[in-house]
């Protein structure tokens, strides 16, 4: 019975971490149709953006919830201006350029930090669940993921900027005709996606550690989750995360982590075969 509770918590955690690493990519891809191949490295930057200040003595929560998203968000806006904007609309070139950015960031991190970087550990201690123990931080991650999804939804639907951004994505010419500075909207949207990604990287850093190639472990899953989610950025990511997170973790408990990964990948293939436009190509279409 207690073990079932542990399994459930771990499943929720898997869903939460998948949603966290994907939502930034979903916003950038879903709203701007830009495939950011450096997404994994934005996660890595978020990780370094929490570890380095903590080493220097900054409070962990400030570093994680404020410094990391801000830093990566700003970096994202610079990337958007320098690399994405000149290539807007050219999908292949964007992939190549962002892959180049990804290699550059991996290389820079390897040169500057190498693999000698010290990490932090999951804070908040642990609690007992019946005869088992689970880290409190696991619950924190689940909570943050839910908060992020809710926050993004409210931001896009209820704030002026959010509505302007949505309108610009749906019909940039019309928005421009109505006086919207589309360049600024794109920059801020990309920055928002980057900031969310930085936050995700920071939140996961105490659990997985941060090394220069940590982005590579995330990119494939994030990419697959976003595409399988379909056109609606938020509801698609949420739906795909629930499906894949559950499959992955349940199979992991039944066998090994690798079979769990394979199960996630097989589920993705089957899903795309049945729903070639992703989940929100058919369901939840009136969402966001």
């Amino acid at each position, binding site marked *: 019975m207690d073990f079932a509770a542990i399994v459930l918590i771990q499943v929720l955690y898997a869903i939460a971490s998948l949603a966290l690493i994907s939502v930034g990519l979903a916003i950038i891809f879903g709203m701007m149709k830009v*495939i950011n*191949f450096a997404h994994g490295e934005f996660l890595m930057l978020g990780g370094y953006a929490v570890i380095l200040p903590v080493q220097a003595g900054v409070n962990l929560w400030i570093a994680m919830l404020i410094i990391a998203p801000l830093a990566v968000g700003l970096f994202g806006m610079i990337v958007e201006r320098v*690399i994405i904007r*000149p*290539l807007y609309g*050219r999908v*292949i*070139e964007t*992939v*190549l*350029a962002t*892959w*180049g*950015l*990804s*290699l*550059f*960031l*991996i*290389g*820079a991190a*390897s*040169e500057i930090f190498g693999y000698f970087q010290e990490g932090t550990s999951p804070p908040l201690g642990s609690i007992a669940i019946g005869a088992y123990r689970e880290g409190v931080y696991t619950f924190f991650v689940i909570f943050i993921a839910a908060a992020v999804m809710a926050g993004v939804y409210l931001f896009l639907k209820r704030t002026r900027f959010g509505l302007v951004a949505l309108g610009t994505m749906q019909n940039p010419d019309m928005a421009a005709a109505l006086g919207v500075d589309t360049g600024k909207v794109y920059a801020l949207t990309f920055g928002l996606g980057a900031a969310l990604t930085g936050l995700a990287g920071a939140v996961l850093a105490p659990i997985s550690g941060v090394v220069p190639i940590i982005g*590579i472990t995330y*990119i*494939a899953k994030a*990419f*697959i989750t976003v*595409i*399988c989610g379909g056109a609606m950025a938020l509801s698609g990511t949420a739906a795909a995360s629930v499906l894949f997170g559950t499959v992955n973790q349940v199979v992991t408990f039944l066998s*090994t982590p*690798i079979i769990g*990964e*394979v199960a996630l*990948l*097989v589920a*993705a*293939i089957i899903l*795309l*075969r049945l729903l*070639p*436009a*992703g989940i929100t190509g058919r369901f939840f279409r009136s969402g966001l």
Partner: protein
Amino acid sequence: MRSRAEILGLAALGLGGLALLFGLPHVVEIFALVDITVFVILSTLALSLALVWGFGGILCFGQSAFFGLGGYAYAIAVLNMGESTVPVLLGILLPMLFAALLGYFMFWGRVSDVYLAVITLTVSLIFFHLVNSTSGPEYRIGSAPLGGANGIPGVPQINVPGDPGRQLGFDEMFQLAMAVLLLTYFGLRWLLASHFGRVVVSIRENELRAELLGYDARRYKLAVFVIGAGIAGVAGVLFANWGSFIGPNVFSIFFTAQIIIWIMVGGLGTLGGAVIGTVIIQFLTTWLGETKIADTNLVLGVIFVLFVLLVPNGLQPMLRDLFGGWAARRAVARTGKGAP
């Protein structure tokens, strides 16, 4: 039809290739020849994706899956059989069979564009995870352990058919790889100039229109996909031979994305560009790794970004513009007619 300039160009390429094939082993030392051999093998792999993506319009993000399947099939078969002829055939046929199944699954389901890219990437990752976790001793096919993350070391070289004692040496391996590359290149040029090739390109240009003209796009895409897988499989077989080693890294996202980079650097939609892109990137990677001037990824990353911003269509079109413009002007001056 073919213009005189084009035929002369092809002939020059062919002669140049044959010259390299027979001449290079005598001019260059064994060690450098081994390095060049891998560039040749990877160029063949690039040609397979150039066909599938550049001409077939199928963004296959998992071409490495066929490459790896070919390499592993060869390695396991040759360790079991002791003689290499059948394993080489297996290394070509198994990827083609798998591509037929996967292609059927995708094309008959009308999956396309980015979704197809995701499915093919996912397939390659599945292979990676599965193969990476088979290092236990219970994972063996016949007498060949799968090796998991260890990979399969000590893969016997290709031998002269029927004579297992007579294995290929380093220079013969180069010549075999070069012969395969030349056959692939000219074979693909011929294929693309044929009726089949033209239909394939027309499907890439506008699938709906091709279907309305009566061509079943699914069949043509499947054919191109399977042929591409076979070529990738051959490259995989040669690769397993080259290092006497094959490991699960051939299925990783890093490697499969590299194939795409080679094509993009060389120029999507060209064949020669695929070879140029591969050679340049791999040469740079090896050179940077040896001289340790700076981190390989850092330099490659900077080059890619600059490249995209300055040379957006890839190298072959750029070279063709630069030097082809010169040839066209000469043709105009000579004949008074326009460029072919």
